[in-house]
């Protein structure tokens, strides 16, 4: 199968439903052949965006381009775009093989059944070709849905939370398979999901969406390492966000920020705002916790030490222990400590927190530190 993927560009896409804005002036460019994830909580507009690319919804404003072609005004069946639906939407009256051959037949592609069988073999379902979809398991139906889309060699393949209905183990397996198939066929994949782990493991590029807008786009590692908004910091993994004051903005090693009794350094390029009151963030696994007055063995001279902490809560999860530590001037901070040693520090213990300043990131002052925290 040859590489058929094309670039996808959204220019100023807005979608209004009666009374609310689902997608708000969205600009997006997805390079050909890439695996792109649109990540966001339910209701953020990611599925609407996908449906507009598929042609199942039409934007109120803006343009959609596939390759060099403006497809804004075309209908779904005229676009060389296929979707793997969340519900799979397999045709119950057709066999698995006929389901997969459906798109080829509509376009009068020669040897539709032969091609369909080949793609069924690719997803390892060749032996079930004559079954009806209702006779397959959820995971098998998911593969049929994927085969039915991939067989058409579309320019862009859309995946609308395709793994949402599968159990955890099958999900992990399908994630790996999807990634592998994408690399084999070279089609541009756009994957909509609310599962941040799924987005991080599968995609080359992740766009985090919130309330109809894109908060931040980047490779998974970059998004995780340097979130630019409180929403991204909280929605993608977990973050400790606390307010701090920039006391010196002109230092050679970047900004000097202070919270409570502690000062630390923050590289200017890692901060969205370089002066006044800002929000500083650090990931829980990047904090090292010791009993008060001790020093971690690997701590360098430039590490920041926060004294006066008191453990409030301890949750043992096997591979790591999660501590809630009350820190003067910063509030409650979460620390993930890998269980390399056997010692678990109990609640009420006086502790010091240590971190390498290079792991800090700075967000705009006044950011809602709870934005994007998933409510359980």
């Amino acid at each position, binding site marked *: 199968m040859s590489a058929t993927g094309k670039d996808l560009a959204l220019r100023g896409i807005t979608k209004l439903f009666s009374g609310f804005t689902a997608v708000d002036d969205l600009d997006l460019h997805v390079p050909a052949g890439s695996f792109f994830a649109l990540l966001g909580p339910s209701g953020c507009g990611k599925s609407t965006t996908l449906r507009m690319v598929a042609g199942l919804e039409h934007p109120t404003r803006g343009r959609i381009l596939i390759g060099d072609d403006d497809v804004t005004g075309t209908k779904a069946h005229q676009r060389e775009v296929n979707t793997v639906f969340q519900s799979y939407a397999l045709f*119950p009256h057709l066999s698995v093989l006929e389901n997969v051959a459906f*798109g080829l037949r509509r376009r009068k592609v020669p040897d539709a059944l032969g091609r369909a069988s080949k793609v069924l073999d690719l997803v390892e379902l060749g032996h079930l070709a004559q079954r009806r979809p209702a006779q397959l398991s959820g995971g098998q139906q998911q593969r049929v849905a994927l085969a039915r889309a991939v067989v058409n060699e579309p320019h862009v393949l859309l995946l609308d939370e395709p793994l949402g209905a599968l159990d955890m183990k099958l999900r992990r397996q399908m994630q790996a398979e999807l990634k592998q198939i994408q690399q084999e066929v070279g089609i541009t994949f756009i994957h909509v999901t609310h599962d941040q782990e799924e987005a991080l493991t599968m995609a080359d590029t992740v766009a985090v969406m919130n309330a109809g807008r894109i908060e931040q786009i980047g490779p998974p590692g970059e998004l995780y390492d340097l979130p630019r908004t409180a929403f991204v910091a909280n929605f993608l993994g977990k973050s400790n966000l606390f307010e701090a004051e920039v006391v010196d903005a002109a230092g050679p090693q970047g900004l000097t920020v202070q919270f409570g009794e502690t000062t630390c350094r923050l590289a200017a390029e890692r901060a969205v705002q370089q002066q006044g009151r800002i929000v500083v963030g650090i990931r829980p696994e990047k904090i090292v916790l010791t009993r008060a007055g001790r020093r971690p063995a690997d701590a360098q001279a430039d590490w920041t030490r926060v004294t006066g902490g008191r453990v409030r809560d301890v949750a043992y999860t096997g591979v790591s222990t999660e501590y809630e530590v009350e820190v003067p001037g910063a509030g409650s901070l979460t620390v993930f400590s890998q269980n390399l040693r056997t010692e678990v520090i109990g609640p009420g213990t006086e502790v010091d927190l240590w971190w390498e300043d290079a792991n800090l990131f700075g967000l705009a002052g006044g950011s809602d530190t709870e934005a994007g925290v998933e409510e359980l």
Partner: protein
Amino acid sequence: MAVNTTPGAAEELTTPQEHVAPPPLPEQSAEERRTWRARGRLGMLLVIPGFAFITLFFVVPVFSMLAMSLYVRPEGAVPGEFVPGFNIATYAHVMTTYGDTFVRSFLFATVATVAALCIGYPMAYLVAVRLRGRHLLQGLLLVVIIAPFFSSFILRVQSWRFILSDESWVVGFLKAISVLPQDGRLTATALAVVAGMTYLYLPLMMLPIYANLERLDTRLIEAGGDLYAGGLQTFLRVTLPLSTPGVMAGTILTFIPASGDYVNAVMLGNNVDTTTVGQIIDSRFFHATDYPSAAALSAVLMAIILILVTLYVRRFGTKEIV
């Protein structure tokens, strides 16, 4: 016949039987087996009225009708006097005499069924799919469709007769715009009879299709569009095949009564060119007191309907639809 084509209805039919005869599993306790037996007895009790009713009012009359069709007229009998016998010649007689009438009856029924399908399917689709989620409007339209059933159907056919009569404004208007010749008429034509049948049986066509389309997963229509099928292709390849059980039930429910129609033919036709089998049976039975012929005609009508419907279900019936 109709229920066999809709899997849902078929399941409903088989369910009570399953309750009647549950396989007694080895791990069942004595108490569980007693419960199952009690349920089995209850199931039996529940189906007895149905069996009794069908036996009394369907099975017995059908056999007495078949017997009557073979009765013999004795020498020198008064009109209407027949004795039990085995006179198969009555069948040959009615088939040769009324062959054309049979053809006409089934032609009328077929045209009326097709017309009702063409009118009923879009209506059902509109209410079930396009207006999905707009419950008030859906309910209103369904009431409008069913409302005619609240009045006597003789009355409704009678009003059709007024509407289509030679003095009516409809005929006057059609003549004025030269659609109808000056000496033309609407009543006493095949058109009027077929139109009456179409109207009368339209709800029987529409409601099963509606019930079917109401469950149609519209995401499958979207999937059709996504897979390069335009509106017509999606309808032909996805929507229509999925609604086959509804279409089967609707067409059969329309075709069977239309084949034996009597009221429309009498009130809107009543012309030698529109005579239906129903009318012949009526006149043989009540006017000519030729009971064996009337019975033979009824038997032939039943047999032909049975054969046609069986062929139809064999050809288009799809039991595998989920």
